[in-house]
């Protein structure tokens, strides 16, 4: 009986493990089949000559190049704001906060993690309304606002992964560092952070992925269908996930729908590239 149960459990575990790659292959295959034929230079740059767009900043009207740039800028901005904040908060929770403070902070972060992204978008929108009515009548939804709201959205991933990575380090490492006369901060900076880098980076990767693919937040905070390449932090912009949503919801011809699939492929590739870059960075940062 026990033997049979074990066999069943093993079979179920295998099946579950195989299901994930199978589903991934199905989704990617579907995307490739529908999107690959449209994946041409015209998809990127429309009627504009690519070199003119790349080198001289010639405006692109029917291509996804501005959306690619918009998403890249957005992700970079979010990383710039969220990574230092998230890692620092994680360090605080793991190393400095104690007792009730730790409980209270952890509770807040769990709450933040539970907020749906559309609500975060609404918050950004309400923030702009507030600013316009109070001390910044010129304020409008823009790239910076989107990045700010996305930062709020991804912060919990970063905080939790940093905290977990540091807290799960063996006590021996701490004792060793302290026994060598390192101060608490030196211990964190020189021993604990490098040793927990892989865990922290998995949080960074999650956060980057989330920032690149989120549509709900940017929908409310500054993304538009036609803005060209983003000119400044306070300008409107285009982004890949919104472009896909827009095309899929309002396509006029089968060709436009195919474009949406191709754009989805590009987004997938872009996220993959970002993750690869993060992994390379992680390998470079490991202690030598």
């Amino acid at each position, binding site marked *: 009986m026990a033997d049979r149960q074990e066999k069943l459990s093993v079979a179920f575990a295998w099946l579950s493990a195989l299901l994930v790659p199978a589903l991934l292959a199905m989704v990617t295959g579907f995307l490739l089949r529908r999107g690959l034929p449209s994946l041409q230079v015209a998809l990127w740059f429309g009627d504009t000559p690519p070199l003119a767009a790349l080198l001289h900043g010639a405006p692109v009207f029917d291509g996804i190049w501005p959306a690619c740039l918009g998403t890249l800028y957005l992700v970079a901005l979010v990383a710039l704001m969220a990574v230092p904040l998230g890692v620092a908060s994680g360090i605080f929770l793991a190393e400095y906060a104690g007792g009730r403070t730790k409980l209270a902070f952890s509770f807040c972060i769990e709450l933040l993690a539970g907020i749906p992204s559309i609500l975060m978008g609404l918050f950004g929108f309400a923030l702009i309304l507030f600013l316009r009515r109070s001390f910044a009548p010129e304020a409008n939804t823009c790239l910076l606002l989107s990045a700010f709201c996305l930062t709020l959205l991804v912060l919990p991933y970063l905080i939790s992964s940093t905290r977990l990575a540091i807290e799960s380090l063996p006590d021996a490492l701490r*004792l060793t560092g302290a026994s060598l006369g*390192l101060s608490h901060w030196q211990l964190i900076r020189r021993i604990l952070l490098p040793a927990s880098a892989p865990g922290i980076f998995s949080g960074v990767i999650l956060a980057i992925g989330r920032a690149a693919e989120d549509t709900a937040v940017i929908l409310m905070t500054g993304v538009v269908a036609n803005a060209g390449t983003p000119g400044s932090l306070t300008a409107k912009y285009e982004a890949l996930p919104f472009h896909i949503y827009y095309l899929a919801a309002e396509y006029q011809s089968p060709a436009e729908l195919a474009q949406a699939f191709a754009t989805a492929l590009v987004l997938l590739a872009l996220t993959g590239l970002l993750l690869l870059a993060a992994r390379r960075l992680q390998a470079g940062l490991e*202690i*030598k």
Partner: protein
Amino acid sequence: MKAAIRVEKLSVSFAGKHVIRHLSLEIASGGPTFLVGRSGSGKTTLLRALNRLNECLPGCATSGQVELRLGEQWVDAYAATTNVENLRRRVGMVFQSPNVLPLSILRNIEMPLKVALSLPADEAEARAEQALREVHLWDEVKDRLSQAASTLSGGQQQRLCLARTLALRPQILLLDEPTASLDFKAAQRIEDLLLELKSRYTLLVVSHSLGQARRIAESLFVLHDGERIEALSKDVFQDRDALFSVMDELI
């Protein structure tokens, strides 16, 4: 013999549970002084109370007095004015299992020197070489200093840890079962090293091995349940049969 460590009514508890209670003892300079006792009798906690390392573990509370002679001065380890990082540099510690940092062989020694003592690179390197020679590891590793310390054998790792501690130029060395995780040969090398080091440092060794204590200890304490500590005279602990019969009574 001059005293190097004075412990007065020391109590240490973790999350309210006493590990050491009202313990007083005096340890002579030089040594090696051995501290033996059953598992869980509080040997390691006593050792860590001397360089205040217990404080790095959650829920620790310490009371009583620990005085250490560093240079010509007596330092109250738990006084508010005592700089704990400085204290730990001068009261070095080697742990039971070799705890090399995930760094290269050379960086294992250099990093604390550069970070904790703010030594310039060339001085840190010179000190690292000196420390590695002191533990007779230099010839074995001089061509592979940039390799990960984890590639060394267990015995070599333990000698590297000893070198790392010596490079900080401590005056007192606390050794927590330094040979427990090593094979016979590697353990013997560490024992030989301890005999070499005893003229320059005050050595306090926690050990499970009565044989080892008999071979190299100058004085020996037996700790019982974190409360009673008994000093054995040299003629008792060097006589194998006398030692075993006393230990049977005490433990």
